[in-house]
Structure formats: structure tokens, C-alpha cells
């Protein structure tokens, strides 16, 4: 009987022995480095950050005076005011893009590229075996179809993890070289139990990365499901990327009119909405979104598993 570890090893071999994979890896490195260079050449620091923070505080206070303000947004504004006041008091400059940590936080935006590449890998992992005709060699071994599917799914997620690690590493190195590491002790200001506390900035960076991963995991799983059901890589890539870019817009419009929009996948993938205090539909919370994501995750995997398990291999 094949063990799962060997099967994953096989899938990794099929991912990393392909030229296309290395093109994707190259593009990711390039994006990270180019992003740092562009930031270096174009970013202008504010002349007087204290004045800007002061005007932000007064702006927030104006807003807080309004009557029909959403409760979560109100709390968010109050926290911002507290944190900004703390800044002025302790002379802590807000995080600038042209610093070590600043660029690293911004590099989390490049995760959408990792998402796209993971979609491509996940979409290919089942569908390619069909288009190459190798599926009939693969499925006549002492390994259950469920195990083979699982190994492919794990390999796709491992690819995502490697790409994220690479992005972080390259961004950190590029950032250190271009912006220096003098500001590495800069603290991250968090609001906890009614007070502002100073924390290590690395926590903030990891949080930025983690929040962006909900999209990544969900779309990779979605692409994987389409790939297993329709056995067509282009279709899986197309549907997943289309959903990735258009899904949030459509959900946004639906959310303005209908309450049930909160049950849609894309109402829940953007977890930063809770950090900003502006959930898409009133009353949505982080645990609610986590729950919905989990349900979709189970659903996608169940569909993939069920169809792959049952169907005749006639390719």
C-alpha cells in the first residue's frame, strides 16, 4: 500500500520538475524586488507626520459625533483615536512604506500573485493527469483514489506555503538592502483591553500575511474542485481567477441590497474587513466568517472527493 508521504513526494516532483513552475517562482521574486525598487524611488514621506495624525484624530472625532454610525465602525474609530494619541504622546511615527517593516507589510499585497499561481497549480494537478493520459497509470496502483487526491491537494497547498515563504524572504532581503534595518525595533501599536500596547512588528506582518491567505486557500480549493469535477485545467483556472477578481465586486453590490449576501463566499474571504471595522453586511463578525469559510472549504473538498472517487476513467 502506498503511503501518503511517497504520494506527496511524487506530486512535488511533478510540480517542481516543470519549467512553468520555475517561471512562476521567477515572476514572484521579480514582483517582490520590483515592488521594493518602485517604493524606494517614488515614495515620499510626509513632511510633518504629527500634523497629519492630529488632523486624522479630529476627523475621527467629527465622525464619532454622528448619530446613526455603525457600532463596529464606531469602536474602530475610537481605537484609532486612542492609538494616534499614543503616537503623539510617545513620538512614534506611523509605519512608512520605505522602511524595513513598512515594505514587508505592503508585500502582503503580492499574495494575490501567489493566489493566482496556486490556482494554476491546483487547477492542473488533477486535470493535467487526464490531459496527459497518465491518470490511467496513476490509478492502477495500490493507492486509493482518496489518498491520491489528498496527496495532490496537500502538494498544492505546500506549493502555496513555499511561495509565501519565498515572498516573505525575498521581500525581507530586498527591504533590508534598499531601506536598511535601522528601524527594525519600531513597535507595532495594538489596542488591547482598552489600552494601547507596543508589540513586535513581526506580529503585524504575519497578521497581514495570514489575513490574505483566506482568499488563497479558498480559491485554490475551489480551483482544485473544478479541476477534479470537470477535468479541465483551463476551465478551472478561468473560473477561479474570474471569481477571484469579479466575485468580491458582485458580492459588494449584492450586500448593499440583500442581507443574505453575507452567506456568499466572497463576503467572507476578505478578513481585513474586521480589522478596519467595516464588515460588508451589518452584523457580520470574524467568527461568523471563519465558520462560513470552513463550511465552504468542507463543501468544495467533499464535491472534489466525491466526484473523483466515483467516476469512470475513460480518458
Amino acid at each position, binding site marked *: 500500500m*502506498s503511503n501518503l508521504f*511517497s*504520494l506527496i513526494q511524487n506530486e512535488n516532483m511533478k510540480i517542481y*520538475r516543470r519549467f512553468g513552475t520555475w517561471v512562476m517562482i521567477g515572476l514572484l521574486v521579480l514582483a517582490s524586488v520590483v515592488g521594493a525598487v518602485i517604493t524606494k524611488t517614488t515614495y515620499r514621506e510626509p513632511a510633518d507626520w504629527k500634523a497629519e495624525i492630529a488632523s486624522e484624530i479630529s476627523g475621527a472625532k467629527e465622525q464619532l459625533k454622528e448619530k446613526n454610525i455603525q457600532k463596529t465602525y464606531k469602536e474602530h474609530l475610537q481605537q484609532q483615536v486612542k492609538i494616534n494619541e499614543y503616537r503623539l504622546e510617545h513620538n512614534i511615527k506611523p509605519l512608512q512604506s520605505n522602511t524595513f517593516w513598512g515594505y514587508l507589510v505592503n508585500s502582503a499585497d503580492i499574495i494575490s500573485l501567489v493566489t493566482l499561481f496556486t490556482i494554476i497549480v491546483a487547477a492542473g494537478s488533477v486535470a493535467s493527469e487526464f490531459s496527459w493520459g*497518465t491518470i*490511467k497509470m496513476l490509478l492502477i496502483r495500490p493507492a486509493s483514489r482518496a489518498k491520491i487526491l489528498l496527496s495532490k491537494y496537500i502538494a498544492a497547498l505546500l506549493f502555496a506555503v513555499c511561495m509565501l515563504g519565498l515572498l516573505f524572504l525575498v521581500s525581507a532581503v530586498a527591504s533590508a538592502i534598499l531601506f536598511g534595518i535601522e528601524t527594525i525595533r519600531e513597535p507595532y501599536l495594538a489596542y488591547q483591553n482598552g489600552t494601547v500596547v507596543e508589540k513586535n512588528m513581526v506580529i503585524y506582518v504575519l497578521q497581514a500575511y495570514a489575513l490574505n491567505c483566506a482568499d488563497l486557500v479558498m480559491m485554490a480549493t475551489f480551483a482544485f474542485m473544478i479541476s477534479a469535477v470537470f477535468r479541465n485545467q483551463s476551465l478551472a483556472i478561468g473560473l477561479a481567477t474570474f471569481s477571484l477578481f469579479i466575485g468580491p465586486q458582485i458580492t459588494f453590490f449584492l450586500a448593499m441590497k440583500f442581507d443574505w449576501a453575507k452567506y456568499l463566499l466572497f463576503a467572507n474571504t476578505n478578513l481585513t474587513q474586521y480589522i478596519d471595522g467595516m464588515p460588508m453586511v451589518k452584523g457580520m463578525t470574524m467568527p461568523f466568517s471563519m465558520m462560513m469559510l470552513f463550511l465552504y472549504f468542507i463543501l468544495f473538498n467533499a464535491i472534489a472527493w466525491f466526484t473523483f472517487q466515483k467516476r469512470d476513467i475513460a480518458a
Partner: protein
Amino acid sequence: MNPLLQLKHVRKEIGRKTIIHDLSLEVFAGEVFGLLGPNGAGKTTTIRMIVGLMGITSGEVLINGISIARDFEKAIQHVGAIVENPEMYKFLTGYQNLIHYARMTTGVTEERIDEVVQLVGLEHRIHDKVKTYSLGMRQRLGLAQALLHRPSLLILDEPTNGLDPAGIREIRDYLRKLAREEGLAIIVSSHLLTEMEMMCDRFAIIQHGKLVTIESVQELSKQIEKVLFTVEPVEKALQLIQTRYPHINITHTDQGIEIPLDYKEIPNLTAALVDGQINIYGIQVLAKSLEERFLEMTGGNEIV
């Protein structure tokens, strides 16, 4: 002896179409068994069901007595197969392909991989990418992946496809050796009768998804059709034979007189001819060719 492979009343429906009707057969260790039928007869579909790529609508496939449908992993363990073309990962080398399949079973060592590579004669090109291989080399690599884990049942779907006559002969000799010396049960499919004749001990003829008959190559070639008597004078002999066997259809050709006759009757007729003062120059048994028998069995259908 227990059969290594048993098909019991196997049926396959796809949609509303029945592709395989009630197919039953048994294959034993040490024999090369053929599946013969024209394109679209259902050979590949049958093989797909045997190796678990397709579900079985009704009936049962047993490998070593284990049901492929109920206990797939255990049943497939001792099977090596190529279904249709030997498709490999083209962006990997031949060796990497073999590593890939070796990892999926237990007990395949590096020495075994080297041994199989030698066996199929790919040692000079095994570290090249498969996309640079010719069809014949891919067939060899396909055979290597099928043999890697020392299967007791080897299934090859149209293995001679794209091979030249020398390659076909090589495969034939090799399969026979595997069956005789290592006791494998081997199934090969083909749409060519001559190949079946060359490679197999027994073969099943399949047409439109139905089993027409199972034949043994040896017995088939033994069946007598006619006896040719070269005699003089012909007219007198014809008369004599006709009176002796009034209901038999006798033909007179350039070579002599052809009589559909039972084996045992040959000495009797010879004696009668000698008694009748007829000179006998030759007696020749004309075995019915496999081709003729085959056309008879399939109702003169389109198999080459």
C-alpha cells in the same frame, strides 16, 4: 489450478448503452491470453474494468480471488498494466517516471529499477526526458513500469501498436518467456488475428461487447478441413469416391481431389482406391487456416 483472473458475468453500461454483455472468462498463471476483436469491440473497456478504472455495472472481477471492486488496493497490488497507449510524464526522464511508480508500491528497490531497465533495453536512454522518446521506446518504458513490482498478472492493451515486425517478435518472445519462466498470467489485446496466433496460448474473440468464443491456438490449428488426394486416373477415382460417400461435397482442383473427410477415414479410402486400381501419388491433410475458422466463427465480419 486456481485462475489468476476471473471475470464472472461482467456487464458494462454507459448511459443507456450496453458496452459489455455478460462476459465470463478465466486466465491462468503461465499462459498468454488474448482478447481479440475489431476496433470498438470492447477490449479496452474490459481491461478498464479489470484494473478498476471503470466501475462494473453487474458481475464480478476477481484477481487472485480478490474482488477488484470491493478490495481495490489488495487486488491491484499484483497487477501490472498498460491501458491503451503507454502515456508517461513527458517532462520527466524515463528513470524519474519509474521512480514515480516505484514509490507507489512497496518493495521496489533501486536495483530492481535498474534490472527492469536492462530487461526492456532502455539503459542508454533512461536518463533522457520521455518527450525525446520514440513510440517504441515509450512502449518499452510502459512495459518497464508494468513489470516494476513483479506482478503476477500482466495486462497489455494492444502492445504491438506502432511497433515494427522485429519489435513485435521481440515482445512476443519476451511475453512467452515471462509466462513460461516466471509463471505470469498475461493478457494482451489486439485487433489482429495473426498477432494472437503468434503470441497467445488461448484467446477470446469479442464482438460488439459479446464473447463469441474462447479458442486455444494449438487446437484451432489442428482441426482438419480437407484431405487432398493426388491420383490417376481422376475420372475413375471421382466415381469411386462419390459412390462411397454419396453425401459429401467433392471438389476437383488442379492439385487433385479435395474431400472433407474425418481423420479415421483416410486409411479406409486409401485402401478402397488401391483396390479400384487407381494410382495414388500423394495424400495431404489440409488444415483449415485459422483465418477461415475465424471468419466462420465471427460470421465473416470485419476483423483483419
